[in-house]
């Protein structure tokens, strides 16, 4: 640590010396990020908080622009074989690591083998699942060297996939697929991620990391597009307390924050105006019935309860319009895909309630035989309010709802072990823009299939879609119509929205459904 603070001191002194002489006015962006990253090793990350930082430090083969559209990254171009299975990436001749050494195809071969290696224990190893042998290697059945990747020469990287995968390029923007410098890892071992050791190929390079305080990244002069990067220094500041974050923004200590206290939305809008940004985000807030347990194995009963839930009320009153009512699992915003809502999506809430009452009566539930249901949710003020609202909405139908609140680890521990429950809260945020990323959750035996839903036709449609082809989106739509709209393998309640606050001093922060905002495209006045 001594060594570290000395370095920090030197950097600080150097910066002060330069600014004092007026050589240039350093542009500093203080970027609020709800939490510290779990790790800066791209292969060991799992949350969006890391993604926000790693996107600045590294560049994958493909990158995202200010609107989260896929653009060339470390690879300047690519070609796809006629059968859609072999991708050949041409690396940039001027692509360099922050220490000045070239970024080569060998670095990507090394990194991808490392990602899928079972000893790395990467949470996002499945981001390379489409690549030949990837899944077998993670299971330990094959060697990392057998992964379907090859460095044809220093600047040519070739990938072989199991099947044509239309969203493969989209996946390559995910932080798990970033490369790390092989030479650097070999030099420092496990300490390669420490400030002063880490070399990266993105627009910024790591300068300091004080846990729970800040991560400082400075502009990387070796970045291929460094000429167009305006902000010199980014400080990622963990802002666990959202109210404090709002005050810090007001005081000018922060320039943006990735979250706002939504319960104060009206006051915040009055105070900050259009600096508060709210818009659709690729994520779904849902409840899951345990469908392999009576009486929830009855699909009619599941629909009756789903119909009786007033989603408009939840979105408006509980979530202050920071959520949107959802009737399908896949949120809008994915090009080429038409979400398949439940058939009562267009009906009025009154009609839905009447329908629900009828079904309940048909099934023999009533004042003499009340239906009992237990909602489980993980600790959070809003999850609690949602569950309480649903409890109230179901009461007039004679459904006796009890609530069970546990902390996050207990909640998901129970769901994962397929423990006993009636209905439970969960959520899914897309890793990449593709409907399969949602619909995979309802496949038989998937870890996140908390409902324990299993349907051979659904699995078949998903398997056919996984083969690619022109009718892929159609197959996925059929799958959603069957598994979600007909069978309610999940009960979609709300679509997430991003809710951020961005100072008017910043420009180039473009709203998008992935809530992705690389610092290299942002400017500060």
């Amino acid at each position: 640590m001594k060594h570290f603070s000395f370095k920090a001191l030197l950097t600080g002194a150097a910066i002060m010396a330069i600014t004092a002489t007026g050589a240039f006015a350093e542009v500093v962006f203080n970027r609020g990020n709800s939490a510290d990253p779990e790790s800066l090793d791209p292969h060991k990350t799992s949350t969006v908080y890391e993604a926000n930082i790693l996107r600045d430090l590294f560049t994958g083969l493909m990158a995202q622009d200010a609107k989260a559209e896929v653009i060339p990254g470390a690879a300047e171009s690519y070609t796809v074989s006629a059968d859609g299975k072999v991708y050949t990436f041409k690396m940039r001749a001027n692509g360099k690591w922050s220490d000045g050494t070239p970024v080569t195809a060998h670095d990507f071969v090394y990194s991808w083998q490392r990602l899928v290696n079972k000893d790395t224990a990467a949470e996002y190893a499945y981001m390379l699942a489409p690549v030949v042998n990837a899944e077998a290697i993670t299971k330990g059945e094959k060697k990392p060297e057998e992964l379907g990747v090859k460095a044809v020469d220093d600047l040519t990287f070739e990938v072989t996939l199991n099947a044509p995968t239309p969203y493969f390029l989209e996946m390559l923007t995910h932080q798990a697929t970033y490369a790390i410098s092989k030479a650097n890892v070999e030099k420092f071992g496990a300490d390669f991620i420490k400030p002063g050791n880490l070399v990266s190929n993105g627009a910024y390079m790591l300068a300091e990391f004080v846990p729970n305080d800040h991560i400082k990244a400075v502009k990387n002069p070796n970045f291929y597009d460094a000429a167009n990067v305006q902000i010199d220094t980014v400080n990622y500041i963990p802002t666990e307390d959202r109210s404090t974050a709002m005050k810090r923004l007001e005081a000018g200590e922060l320039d943006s924050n990735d979250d706002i206290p939504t319960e104060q939305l009206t006051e915040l809008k009055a105070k900050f105006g259009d600096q508060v940004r709210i818009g659709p985000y690729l994520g779904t807030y849902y409840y899951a019935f345990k469908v392999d347990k009576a009486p929830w194995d009855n699909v009619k009963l599941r629909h009756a309860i789903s119909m009786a839930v007033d989603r408009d009320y939840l979105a408006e009153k509980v979530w202050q319009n920071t959520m949107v009512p959802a009737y399908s699992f896949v949120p809008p915003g994915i090009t080429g895909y038409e979400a398949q809502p439940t058939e009562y999506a267009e009906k009025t809430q009154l009609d839905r309630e009447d329908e629900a009452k009828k079904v309940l009566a048909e099934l023999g539930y009533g004042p003499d035989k009340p239906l009992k249901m237990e909602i489980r949710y993980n600790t959070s003020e809003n999850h609690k309010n949602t569950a309480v609202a649903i409890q109230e909405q179901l009461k007039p139908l004679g459904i006796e709802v009890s609530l069970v609140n546990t902390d996050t680890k207990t909640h998901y521990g129970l769901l994962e072990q397929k423990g006993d429950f009636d209905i439970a809260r969960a959520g899914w945020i897309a890793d990449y823009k593709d409907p399969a990323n949602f619909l995979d959750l309802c496949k038989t035996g998937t870890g996140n299939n908390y409902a324990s839903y299993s349907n051979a036709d659904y699995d078949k449609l998903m398997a056919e879609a996984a083969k690619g082809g022109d009718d892929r989106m159609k197959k996925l739509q059929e799958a959603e119509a069957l598994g979600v709209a007909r069978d309610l393998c999940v009960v979609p309640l709300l679509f997430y929205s991003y809710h951020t606050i961005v100072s008017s001093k910043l420009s180039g922060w473009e709203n998008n459904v992935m809530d992705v905002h690389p610092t290299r495209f942002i400017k500060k006045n």
Partner: protein
Amino acid sequence: MLRYVLRRLLTAIPTLFVIVTISFFLIRVAPGGPFNQEKGLNPVIKANLERQFGLDLPLWKQYLNYLGNLLHGDFGPSYNLPDFTVGELFRTGLPVSIQLGASALVLALAFGTILGIIAALNQNRGGDYAVVATATAGSTIPTFVIAPLFQLFFALTLKWVPVGGWGDGAWVNKIGPVITLMLPQLAIVARLMRGSMIEALRAHHIRTARAMGLSDYSVVVRHAMRGALLPIVSYAGPAAASLLTGSLIVEYIFAIPGVGRYFVDAALNRDYTLVMGTVVVIAIFTLVFNLIVDLLYAVVDPRVRYD
């Protein structure tokens, strides 16, 4: 005296061992594990992670491994922050918490004692009421109310201090957290001091001292105060142990990178090694401060001797 200290330090070792053992097994009773999360992991990946951290071994073996590492001063890696070992997290966070806690403690003791004496000397008069009212307010208004009010007034309205952040330890950044930490302690110290001072002023030896014509200053400071300090000393020990190991609320609201947050976060995240690390650190602080308190008794009260 030295023999007493040595004996106390030696008995601390089995105490620590018992604490570590109980905590190790207790945290494992909590349902869920470090790798349960909203985005569930597929079983293969979860198994890989558990193998990497040795969580696939039988519990007794994990326990022996942990004890073995602990004896070498190795607290192990943090499961949820794998870039850092538990030792590194404490090396960066503990100095921050200690600086804030120690400042708050010293100020609370100094001002609390003075206020308590003022109140006692003016018993049932204006000065007394003022101190008692302040003390009651200080100990009843919760930290999570004081801290945001402080930010609103001193940072946003007056712009004297930053809203939050550590600012590499700049003194302006410490004012808010230190005051917030100090106020409740100050209130308690003042109340304790007031009570014991009133008691002390009624003692026979004080009446004797006054009768012998000693000055007010001498009576209060040299004779009454010394005896009256005993309850403060007993209170200061545990208070120091808790203040120096950080406060979750103050760290959250002022965005301070201390270790107070780990007590709660680590347990909620089932970050077993970090939980154990915090338990060991708190246990050591508590044991050490209890020892210091016992030694201070001898300094303050001539009747106490450890030979």
